[in-house]
């Protein structure tokens, strides 16, 4: 079953490559996405034992990321049927192929316990997303593509040297040389500490830049702003979580060594810097897609702070994987609709969305309320858990800075979003043939319903999963 998770999307990539029709391709994409979701749910219920040798092991952490990626991908695929019908001016072959290859590599990241393989899969997700950012074929999107490709590749390359340092620390320690997570954790006390320390620095910088933690986030607003809403949703809700999962693997290893305090402090500092950066750049942001990108910088910051705090906040970090991933889907998909209708991303032109597109505008507004951490949506639960945990642990400064940034971000985002959805469309704004249809509205709406349900009620199996995953990240004495 684990193999099917990888092979099915790859098969889908081949099929979409062979299909000549631009209309048929998104439907095939959806079929394969549905198959992947089915396999994922089956694997969550009946988890296979770790493979011989320990290379593949779907543990609780992997399950959470796999679930959120697969669900988000499914709704994005359904959305693509309606969305790509408006983009028939160019072939969507590369787009559909890239998405499926990325899904395959993403599944690999979630199931593997071998750090080398994890690196290969993570770099594959980076590369497979590159042509997708360039979907619009203009000067602005090529600039965004170049920045994304270069910064992410260099970042992930630094992570590779971190992984090499870890491998060398096993050789110096004269334990069995290995890059399997479980072996490394078992031998953690014996590993050469100088190398391990250097490795953690490189891994944090490498995976941090892939995740978009400030000050390594500079590619993010460009890539998210210039790519189609559909791709933005996968970048902000999917790839970010994969990089976070890689950081969680490093964190697991840190717990077993003496480096955990250093790593936690670094995470808290980087996380808070990300939130403050986002707060500064969010204010007076005239491009609503770039605004969403800064919101993504904010939320990776929240996850980093939560991980760095440890204790109860870990639960918040893990729940935020789902909450942030799904809410980003809501926002990017509905913003894609708005972009289609006005043919502009600037809030100078985009006004009165609620009048013109009541559904997309309403979903976008609700998504804004959800992502800023207002009840009764899921992000509220994770953010509240993190803040309360910060104060319980007596880290009032961290908690206070966290709350202040959230407040500034709420105001900054509201100043962009509210004028956008309210009022009248300006007379000179463009009108395209785009109309809200069931295909483009239902997927973000379904995601919104999920975010709402998770905000008021977490099903028991999911609760157990989150508890199991938190247990993997607890500090052992």
């Amino acid at each position, binding site marked *: 079953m684990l193999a099917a998770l990888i092979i099915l999307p790859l098969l889908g990539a081949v099929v979409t490559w062979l299909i000549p029709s631009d209309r048929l391709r998104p439907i095939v994409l959806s079929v394969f996405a549905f198959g992947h979701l089915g396999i994922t749910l089956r694997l969550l219920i009946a988890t296979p034992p770790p493979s011989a040798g320990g290379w593949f092991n779907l543990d609780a952490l992997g399950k959470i990321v796999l679930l959120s990626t697969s669900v988000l991908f499914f709704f994005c695929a359904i959305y693509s049927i309606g969305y790509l019908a408006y983009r028939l001016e160019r072939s969507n072959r590369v787009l559909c192929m890239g998405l499926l290859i990325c899904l395959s590599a993403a599944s690999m990241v979630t199931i593997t316990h*071998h750090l*080398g*393989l994890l*690196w*290969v899969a993570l*770099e*594959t997700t*980076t*590369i497979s997303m*590159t*042509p997708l950012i*360039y979907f619009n074929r*203009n*000067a*602005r999107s*090529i*600039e*965004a*593509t*170049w*920045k994304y*490709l*270069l910064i992410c*590749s*260099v970042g992930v*390359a630094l992570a*590779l*040297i971190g992984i*090499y*340092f870890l*491998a*060398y620390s*096993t*050789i*110096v320690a004269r334990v069995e*040389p*290995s*890059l399997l997570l479980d072996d490394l954790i078992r031998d953690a006390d014996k590993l*050469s500490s*100088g*190398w391990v320390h*250097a490795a953690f620095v490189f891994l944090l910088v490498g995976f941090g830049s892939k995740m978009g933690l400030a000050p390594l986030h500079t590619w993010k*607003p*460009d890539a998210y*702003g*210039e790519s189609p809403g559909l791709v933005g949703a996968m970048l902000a809700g999917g790839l970010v979580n994969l990089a976070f999962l890689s950081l969680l693997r490093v964190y697991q290893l840190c717990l077993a060594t003496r480096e955990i305090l250093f790593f936690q402090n670094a995470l808290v500092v980087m996380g808070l810097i990300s939130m403050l950066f986002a707060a500064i*750049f969010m204010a007076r942001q005239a491009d609503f897609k770039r605004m969403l990108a800064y919101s993504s910088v904010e939320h990776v910051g929240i996850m980093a702070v939560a991980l760095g705090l440890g204790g109860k906040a870990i639960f918040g970090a893990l729940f935020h994987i789902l909450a942030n991933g799904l809410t980003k889907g809501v926002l990017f998909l509905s913003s894609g609709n708005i972009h289609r209708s006005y043919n502009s991303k600037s809030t100078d032109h985009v006004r009165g969305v609620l009048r013109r597109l009541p559904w997309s505008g309403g979903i976008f507004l609700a998504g804004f309320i959800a992502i800023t951490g207002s009840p009764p949506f899921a992000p509220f639960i994770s953010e509240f858990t993190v803040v309360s945990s910060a104060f319980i642990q007596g880290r009032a400064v961290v908690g206070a800075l966290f709350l202040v940034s959230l407040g500034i971000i709420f105001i900054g985002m509201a100043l962009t979003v509210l004028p956008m959805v309210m009022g009248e469309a300006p007379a000179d704004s463009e009108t395209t043939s785009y109309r809200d249809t069931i295909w483009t509205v239902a997927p973000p709406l379904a995601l919104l319903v999920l975010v709402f349900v998770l905000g008021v009620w977490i099903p028991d199996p999911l609760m157990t999963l989150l508890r199991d995953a938190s247990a993997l990240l607890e500090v052992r004495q």
Partner: protein
Amino acid sequence: MITIADQFLVLVLLINFVVLGTSRLIFSIRAVAVQGVILGILPALIHPFSWHLVGIISMILITKGVVIPLLLNRAVRSAEIKREVEPFLGYVPTLLLGAVFTALSFGFAGKLPMLAEHQNYMFVPASIATLMTGFLILTTRRKAISQVLGYLILENGIFIFGLLLAEAMPIMVEAGALLDLLVGTFVMGIVINHISREFSSLDTSRLTSLKEE
């Protein structure tokens, strides 16, 4: 054999300085290709014979020595540029910085605990120095091609370190990493061609329309 390996590493370090000091793009591409070929030969000198090794070596020689240079040459020709003009930092300062970084990496490597049999060889300092050179080129050059070369040199630095880890890195992973590098550079080559079509130059400092006002 390992002393010969050390000689080769000195050559790798020299090539770093060649690339830092030249403005001719075709020449830089060749220099990086030579560096790749040297790195392809190195595993043969330090590891005993095996078919795995033959596979990896031929893969490295083909990708780093032939495919990637061809791709980059084509990009240079289609964009009709010959030189790196006005880098963000001049050639002499970057050369000096390169020298400083190389010295620092020898110091840094001396501080880390090494396995006794690796103690006297310069894999680690050469690796870190090459890594830093790649970084320097990435940050100081304007042309997209030069930035790709910087990325390649950075990867070469990582690769030198990987030579110490033959037992820990299974062949599949090694091959996967190489493949990713190749595909990454391939995609970069394609993007470069699109940049030149869109801006009629390869100057990344023109890529400034996406900025916060």
